[in-house]
């Protein structure tokens, strides 16, 4: 099955159809997507500020990472769930939309980077790794997430 076939199938599914047919369902799911964004954005920012020795400071990064982990996982779940619902309502349009693919690529990289390099760096003893590594990790994470957000916003302009 080609990707386009899958996208077409999503769009013609009853979920996609229900969201398209409803006046308020799409805006309601969009609002949920934005509320998830606020939580996810706040958690990502708090962690990255720590890695940059701003916010709660570099020494707090490991503790902060452990404390906000459920909020990070929860908000990503809300984002993926609501995002998928939005996707089903206009999947074929998105297939031909460059911003959608930029967003999906950046999302994959962001998540992969978060659970590998960023996690390791945040949990590492700050005395045993260079401040430069922490800073680079934070900047890369912020850039990747920014690309996800900007790509998402750009999907709306079409």
């Amino acid at each position, binding site marked *: 099955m080609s990707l386009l076939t899958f996208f077409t199938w999503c769009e013609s599914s009853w979920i996609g159809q229900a969201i398209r047919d409803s006046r308020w369902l799409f*805006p309601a799911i969009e*609002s949920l997507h*934005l*509320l998830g964004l606020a*939580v996810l954005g*706040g958690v990502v*920012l*708090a962690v990255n500020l720590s890695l940059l020795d701003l916010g709660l400071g570099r020494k707090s990064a490991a503790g902060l990472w452990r*404390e906000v982990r459920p909020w990070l996982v929860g908000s990503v779940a809300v984002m993926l769930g609501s995002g998928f619902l939005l996707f089903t309502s206009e999947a074929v349009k998105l297939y031909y939309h460059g911003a959608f693919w930029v967003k999906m690529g950046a999302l994959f990289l962001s998540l992969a980077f978060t659970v590998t390099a960023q996690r390791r760096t945040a949990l590492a003893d700050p005395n045993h790794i260079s401040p430069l590594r922490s800073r680079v990790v934070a900047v890369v994470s912020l850039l990747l997430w920014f690309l996800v957000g900007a790509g998402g916003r750009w999907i709306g302009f079409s």
Partner: protein
Amino acid sequence: MSLLEFCRWLENTPGSIALHESIWVYPIVESVHVLTLCVFLGLTVVIDLRLLGATLLATPVSQILRRFLPWTVAGFAVMVVSGALLFYAIPMKTYLNIFFRLKVAFLLMAGLNVAIFQRTASRTMAGWDHDPKPPFRARLAGGVSLALWAGIVICGRMIAYNWFD
């Protein structure tokens, strides 16, 4: 001059027309408004969750406020400026929009919530700064803030849908 007349006047100013008709500037201002949400509201959520005793329990409340408030204040400034520009681009329709009016009402209530917190629970913070679960008035301020900001985000999103025009 009534608010309605003011909006009508604003709508016919060259700047408003230019912004309204711009191909790039308006979407960029809108993107800035949405993405700065992460800075302002994201860190406000972290602060509110700490007040509720839901995260960062080992960190004193005063420390979280001291470290994050400068970021939320800067983020809020960007939100106000970009939000004002979005209003400036479409004054009449926005002014008459029910969700815009609700959003403004919620914003005023959120401001009032902060003012009440500063005059009550915040005054005694030294006594509960390290508590994993702050006193009721502090938790109330955090919960009310979260609820109001959720309402503000939802109303903000709904302004773009012209259901009642």
